[in-house]
């Protein structure tokens, strides 16, 4: 076993220093009835590296992945272009195998990348500051609601039904466990207008929303102000390269899923949660934050984790959250992505998504499908089909397409509705083929 380097001579020499006769003796404090003999567990036998790779390759081949299917499925996780530099950077052992940068003198490299990450996420969202990242978009949103509760004291959380259903399910779980009430308000034609937010700690809206429509954030800000509630926006960072930023509308907290920025879909994990807020709320923010400082005895700049007293290892039960890890490696992937694409590349990706989506809408309309909530969408839209969307989705797989997400399981009465995403990597040819295949399936 190459991962355990002890030779028999090493083991003997070490035991003799310790003054023990055997390794077993070191476990003498474990009651004997609680021990199992080495080698007695019922798990499969060891595989050498060659066989291991062959075995895993065989299992992977059983999946129909998105190199075999053309992906028009989004709903929070997107099939986007990933520059080759991303994998090159995050594979470096100095980053991959580091721990949380508790010792800043040994971790300046990572700390600086997190500072750069915080800057660029703040820029995209138009916010004062960002933390070092969260688990994923869904848990970021739940943490944001709990943060608003901590600031406002109110126990009611109001969320639009046009926010991702999975995010709302996670919100419900988190809120149940600490006794907060979640009120879901209906959207009408893909827009959330009536907030009914009296006595709420916050109102939560998605931008663009789950259906791809662009909510009127100025109106949301006004609704929050009228109710004295905080305004939380769940925003797609790629869309924010083109749309006016949530921060420019006065959002208090903006969160989101960072996966579209350079992270493999990977069945949804690991991904990275983004979390930004106004400066005045910084002491309430969950998770880690990196700050710039300088040497005690010198002038060289350096970076450290800061505002640490909010965190669980110091504040214990009074911490702002129980989160320890950020998603540093995934945040690093997003950092490389944001730099590789830069201002022009990210804008171009966002613009291409809009163009491809508009083209797909026109092709689907030409085969008789209707767009449910209008065409003023960013990169995703709801199309109403003449038959069950699940049935269509399943038939499309045999034609080589992951056609989208059937919405009947999430929204009553939407059994024939399919949520279709068209990213910048879809080509005209693929969209044409998609529409032709859809036409055959609908015939």
């Amino acid at each position, binding site marked *: 076993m190459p991962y355990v380097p002890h030779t028999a001579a090493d083991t003997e020499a070490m035991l003799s220093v310790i003054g023990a006769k055997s390794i077993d003796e070191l476990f003498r404090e474990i009651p004997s009835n609680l021990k199992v003999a080495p080698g007695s567990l019922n798990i499969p036998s060891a595989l050498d590296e060659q066989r291991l790779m062959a075995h895993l390759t065989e299992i992977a081949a059983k999946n129909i992945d998105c190199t075999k299917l053309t992906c028009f499925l989004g709903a929070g996780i997107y099939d986007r272009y990933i520059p080759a530099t991303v994998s090159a950077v995050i594979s470096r052992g100095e980053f991959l195998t580091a721990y949380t940068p508790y010792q800043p003198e040994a971790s300046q490299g990572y700390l600086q990348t997190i500072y750069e990450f915080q800057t660029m996420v703040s820029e995209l969202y138009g916010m004062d500051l960002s933390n070092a990242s969260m688990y994923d978009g869904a848990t970021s949103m739940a943490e944001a609601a709990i943060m608003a509760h901590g600031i406002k004291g109110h126990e009611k959380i109001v969320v639009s039904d046009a926010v991702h259903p999975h995010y709302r399910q996670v919100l419900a779980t988190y809120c149940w466990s600490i006794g907060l009430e979640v009120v879901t308000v209906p959207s009408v034609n893909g827009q959330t207008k009536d907030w009914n937010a009296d006595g709420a700690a916050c109102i939560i809206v998605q931008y663009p929303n789950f259906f791809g429509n662009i909510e009127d954030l100025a109106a949301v800000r006004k609704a929050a102000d009228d109710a004295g509630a905080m305004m939380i926006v769940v925003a797609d960072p790629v869309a924010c390269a083109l749309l006016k930023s949530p921060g420019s509308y006065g959002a208090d907290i903006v969160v989101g899923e960072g996966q579209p920025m350079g992270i493999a879909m990977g069945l949804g994990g690991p991904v990275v949660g983004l979390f930004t807020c106004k400066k005045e709320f910084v*002491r309430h923010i969950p998770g880690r934050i990196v700050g710039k400082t300088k040497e005690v005895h010198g002038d060289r700049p350096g970076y450290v984790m800061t505002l*640490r*007293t909010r965190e669980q290892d*110091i*504040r214990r039960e009074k911490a702002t959250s129980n989160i320890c890890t950020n998603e540093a490696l995934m945040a690093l992937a997003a950092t490389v992505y944001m730099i590789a694409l830069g201002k022009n590349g990210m804008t171009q990706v966002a613009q291409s998504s809009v163009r491809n989506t508009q083209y797909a809408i026109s092709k689907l309309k030409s085969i008789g499908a209707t767009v449910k909530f209008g065409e003023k969408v960013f990169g995703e839209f709801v199309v109403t089909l003449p038959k069950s969307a699940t049935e269509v989705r399943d038939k499309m797989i045999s034609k080589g397409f992951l056609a989208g997400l059937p919405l009947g399981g999430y929204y009553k009465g939407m059994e024939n509705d399919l949520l279709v995403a068209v990213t910048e990597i879809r080509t005209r040819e693929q969209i044409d083929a998609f529409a032709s295949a859809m036409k055959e399936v609908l015939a």
Partner: protein
Amino acid sequence: MSNIPSDLKYMKSHEWVRVEGDVATVGITDFAQSELGDVVYVELPTVGKMLAVGDTFGSVESVKTVSDVYAPVPGEVLEVNQDLVTSSELVNSDPYGHGWMIKIRLTASVPTTLMNADEYGVVAV
């Protein structure tokens, strides 16, 4: 050896109190500030809050620790030291002077369990 003024009363959780008429001024001791290290943030109560003896009225943070601070006397918060919002280092540099935290209008008598300087000197080591 830390500075323990003889005209003050103390709690074993390292708060000092100076009573003048029916107003008590409260802060943390020189020993407490030196154990904490550089104070970077002081959380203070709102004026008007009612406190019983032993109630947490705020917290003091250094870079790596945070300590709650407790009311040594019962009463209503009359004033909080706004200077600490921008200059929390006053708790380090002048713990018994400009680093005071709150003033309390007494609603009952001062507890007899508070320590004098000699008694506190035994605790603050």
